């Protein structure tokens, strides 16, 4: 029993767990829409695209949340500009901004005295450095993300189905897409200081992708995603304590490992279920054809 509770005896360990759980809750919910919209590459680019804003804030001494928000705006504006002004596909625009913003971030950080330390902090965060102020900011930014992800259920479901269909159903796909970008940006900005941009992306994609393997509806996907996100945070911190590994990276690894484990189990059990479903379907069609 001590093996499971020992990693959370100290206050800083408990705050790390709490911060991780808040990040998991926020990211796993908005991540469901990110995965359903097929925007994982955008998400990856986005979490790295905020790097120059945070780096500039660290060096110039202004609020890193503000720096990340400005970088996010530049990133989205750049993608839209390329998309509208050229015939290039959106993934090319995302790729250009991804690598450009990442390079700019590293260039800015290279001017700092502790180059490696600063880069590691931004990418991997400092989950054990979570204090009450960080937690308050995370909750304050996280609540609108959670509420927005749920309030926009119908427009986002229709948009995931098809932007054209969403338009014909009166669900305002352009506004909905812009709102989703704001929700993703807010989740990234809210969480990067505690858990790092890498883990934010891990939580945005890992638990929702795993949930997609087992859920039959989007509400089920939300529940499974949050549960899996929380599991990854808790198990990741336990393992990192006993193995002496980096907390955020271990949590990310657990989230991805759970995906492959679920994939293997669902394929083993799912093939039998699909066989039964297809036989029932064939019988139903035959009966209809005979009627």
């Amino acid at each position, binding site marked *: 029993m001590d093996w499971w509770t020992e990693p959370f005896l100290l206050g800083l360990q408990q705050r790390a767990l709490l911060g991780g759980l808040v990040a998991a809750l926020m990211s796993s919910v908005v991540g469901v829409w990110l995965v359903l919209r*097929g925007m994982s590459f955008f998400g990856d680019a986005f979490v790295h695209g905020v790097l120059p804003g945070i780096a500039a804030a660290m060096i110039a001494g202004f609020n890193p949340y503000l720096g990340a928000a400005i970088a996010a705006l530049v990133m989205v504006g750049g993608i839209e500009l390329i998309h509208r002004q050229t015939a290039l596909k959106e993934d090319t625009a995302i790729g250009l901004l991804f690598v450009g913003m990442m390079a700019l971030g590293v260039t800015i950080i290279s001017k700092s005295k502790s180059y490696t330390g600063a880069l590691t902090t931004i990418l991997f965060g400092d989950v054990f450095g979570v204090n009450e102020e960080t937690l308050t900011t995370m909750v304050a930014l996280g609540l609108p993300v959670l509420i927005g992800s749920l309030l926009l259920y*119908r427009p986002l*479901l*229709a948009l995931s*189905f098809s932007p*054209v269909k969403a338009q014909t159903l*009166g*669900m305002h796909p352009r506004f909905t897409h812009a709102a989703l970008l704001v929700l993703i940006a807010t989740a990234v900005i809210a969480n990067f200081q505690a858990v790092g941009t890498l883990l934010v992306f891990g939580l945005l994609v890992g638990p929702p992708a795993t949930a997609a393997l087992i859920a039959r509806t989007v509400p089920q996907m939300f529940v499974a995603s949050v549960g899996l996100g929380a599991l990854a945070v808790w198990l990741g911190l336990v393992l990192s304590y006993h193995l002496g590994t980096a907390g955020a990276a271990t949590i990310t690894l657990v989230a991805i490992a759970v995906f492959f484990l679920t994939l293997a189990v669902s394929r083993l059990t799912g093939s039998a279920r699909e066989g039964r479903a297809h036989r029932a*379907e064939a019988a139903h069609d035959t009966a209809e*054809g005979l009627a």
Partner: protein
Amino acid sequence: MSTEWLAEASGLALGYGGTVAVRPSSFAIPHRQVTAIIGPNGSGKSTLLNALAGVVRPRAGSLTVLGRRPGGRPGGVAYVMQSLAFPAGTPITVREAVGMGLYPKIGWFRRPSASDRERVRSAMDRLRITAFAARHLDELSGGQRQRVYVAQGLAQPHEALLLDEPLTGLDITSARSIDQIIHSERDHGHAVVLTTHDLDEARAADWVILMNGRVIAAGRPSEVLTRRHLEDAYGLGSLHASAGPFFDDPHIDEASAREHDHSRHAHPH
């Protein structure tokens, strides 16, 4: 009695980005009748359907649907896109997919009323998909999925149903269900506009629009599906292998041509 029009276009031009899909065309589509839009691949059939649904704005000219700008009237048009246009992986059951048709009425937050839920049930019954209601879309065949999307259109409050190639590549059960819906919609006073590659489907409609980068002809099948128009749309000699008769064929009168249609069609008008 004067014809009641679903849509009226004057000098209508349509396109995407730098591509012109439909050159300036003027035509009308009657209300409460079945209209088939026919033409070769890339002739602008789906673009015209998108314009009627309000998804594509006119580049030039004017287009009105039910007397207004397309897409500007809630409850006017329900658009059923090709089933291939949707990602099969969205975790959504058949019942919820059909229920999405209620969104224009219930908006972002309102709970569906008992009559709304009955509307969904009725749409599923009409398409014979009630047995699949709890099934995931990913677990259905292509024909069953197409029936779900037509049911979604029926659940949506509408006066006109737009169908993009609704019968292409379907199994007999699914094609028969959708064919019955097309005719029962007209019997209920709704307009149906569908795109097709099949000359027989076009001959069985009340009204035909023949396209190839523009509207070549619009009117009754007997006026539109003539050898001259079809050669204009598909190219000279390309139709020699067609099994169906032409309405202006000197060897066949219109009555026997219609008889031919009805013998091929599951539900004659």
